[in-house]
């Protein structure tokens, strides 16, 4: 199987260790902050950026991300707005965005936008992949994969400590980009630190020799947890900790650089 020509696949072809993917919610803390934060993260040297499309009922997310979703929606954020904000970011004369972009969100707003229209827009503005936790894997394969493929858009899937080896193999076969390893059975932001149980899970996955690279998310919030994740996968994803940081210390380039330095020393 040849890989889709895509910034995410290119990234992993060049770099396989200590990758840092940072999540933030679009339109948070202010509606116009999306591009500021995106650029700040790129300048701070993160490898991938995951932009949250806010949703009224984010069941897989903990309080911090839920609240940021609520704030963003109150600010008037929507998928349409987000595409407007991202439009031209790849060709910006001063500060072109080159970092791979993932959109993370829930299926309903995407269905209302129209799956094909959504994929087309992603391609147009330079989005490389999506994470839609409540889109069932089987349904994606049956109904939507062909559309995603047509627009060169990767769909990243989650696995958890409870996911069976058989299902992990299936996900590994059908998806590309990377596999999102949820560190423990949990919603975002609810755990911190890496336990022995998690270590055993990381090692089990490591020994499966999957085709796709892996990033570990949920509970990564400092250098210690980032290093532990990186020792067991190709890198890590940080979300809630960054949202809290934005809230407390603002969206300036300095503030974002400080946060990133505090994760990947």
């Amino acid at each position: 199987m040849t890989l889709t020509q895509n910034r995410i696949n290119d990234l992993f072809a060049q770099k396989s260790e200590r990758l840092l993917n940072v999540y933030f919610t679009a339109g948070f803390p202010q509606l116009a902050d999306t591009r500021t934060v995106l650029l700040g993260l790129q300048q701070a040297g993160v490898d991938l950026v995951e932009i949250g499309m806010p949703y009224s009922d984010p069941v897989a997310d903990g309080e911090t991300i839920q609240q940021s979703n609520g704030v963003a929606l109150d600010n008037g954020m929507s998928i349409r707005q987000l595409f407007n904000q991202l439009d031209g970011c790849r060709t910006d004369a001063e500060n072109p965005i080159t970092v791979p972009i993932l959109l993370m969100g829930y299926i309903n707003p995407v269905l209302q936008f129209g799956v094909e229209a959504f994929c087309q827009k992603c391609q147009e503005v330079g989005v490389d992949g999506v994470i839609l936790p409540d889109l069932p894997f089987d349904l994606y394969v049956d109904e939507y994969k062909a559309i995603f493929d047509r627009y060169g858009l990767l769909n990243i899937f989650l696995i958890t400590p409870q996911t069976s080896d058989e299902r992990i193999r299936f996900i590994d076969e059908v998806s590309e980009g990377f596999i999102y390893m949820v560190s423990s059975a949990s919603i975002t932001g609810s755990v911190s630190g890496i336990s022995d149980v998690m270590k055993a899970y990381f090692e089990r996955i490591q020994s499966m020799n999957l085709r796709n690279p892996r990033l570990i998310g949920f509970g990564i919030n400092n250098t210690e947890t980032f290093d532990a994740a990186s020792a067991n996968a190709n890198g890590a994803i940080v979300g809630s900790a960054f949202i809290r940081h934005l809230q407390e210390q603002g969206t300036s380039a300095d503030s974002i650089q400080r946060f990133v330095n505090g994760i990947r020393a």
Partner: protein
Amino acid sequence: MQTTFEPQTSFEVSNKGFYGHFGGAFIPEMLYPNVEELRQNYLAIIAEPSFQAEFQNLLTDYVGRPTPLFLAKRLSEQVGATIYLKREDLCHTGAHKINNTIGQILVAQRLGKKRIVAETGAGQHGVATATVCALMGLECIIYMGAIDIERQKPNVDRMRMLGAEVRPARSGSQTLKDATNEAMRHWINNPVDTHYIIGSVVGPHPYPDMVARFQAVISLESRKQLLEKEGRENPDYVVACVGGGSNAAGAFYHYLNEPTVRLIAAEAAGHGVESGHSAATTALGKPGVLHGSRTILMQTEDGQVTEPYSISAGLDYPGIGPLHAHLFDSGRGEFYSITDDDALKAGFNLSKLEGIIPALETAHALAALNYMSLTKSDIVVVCLSGRGDKDLSTYTKHL
């Protein structure tokens, strides 16, 4: 072991969990093993003779089934048709909700679960869940919208007395939808030892089907009872209120394939369908995904779920179960939007006419009778889903 089955009719769930275009299991991977475990086992568990024996025994001796089918003479005269009330209000704990919680706790036990989590709106499902947890000695955590905790205080006290921990859901509109979100999050965080007892025919497959099967006892009984009283199994109409739709699913279940029986669903219109303060899902909603299934739901153009409103906490929900979405979509079900005022009037009316104080949810079904253009020869079964004790403070504000 039988794990899937062929749908026998278009109103039965397909083995992928769909009713027509609606249903499925739109869940994050974190919930997949739990839901899959349930999907693979529920039919076999329900079919076990030991399960059936225990379920039937509890329905009889604990819940107090069969519930009567009562000929409401004075109401019949007023409405101008023969009205029977299926008395789910006489179930232990005061509503139909316990039919489902008895069934699910027996499933949870057979799956080896140690703890139960549930959401509740009016508190009826919370009470019914706390009750069966006490009965079986399982730990019980109930999420309830902070606003509902205020307006359904007696039920909160009952849950606590039954030994449940009631946790307020403070996100969003702080009502049933948000309590459901919190219960799902709790389940994600506790995947192995916890069973989530959903309180209606909503959620990812197999919940809508499983809950409908447990509530189906309502129409199983009403058919038999009507045969005894009227010499026919089939009424002309079955009427039920729809929040998520569990009492309606149960009341409709054994009539789904009887085309002469018209199925009437009463939704909460709040201050009016167009008022911006409503929970009339089929009138205002569009297809979308909520709480794990594709259904009809109230949402903005951007696909954000709309905050619903109804005077009755049990109907204050922006979606309906996928079976009902399919009944609506296919035309098999007829949906009426009933305002707060209509429901209050119908509640007072039944109290004075028949000496039965209905739950505010149920009052919506009663109000639908006034809009149905019935004739003298019509036989109507109304699902009297619950009693109104929990709503006294709301009723008395409008006396």
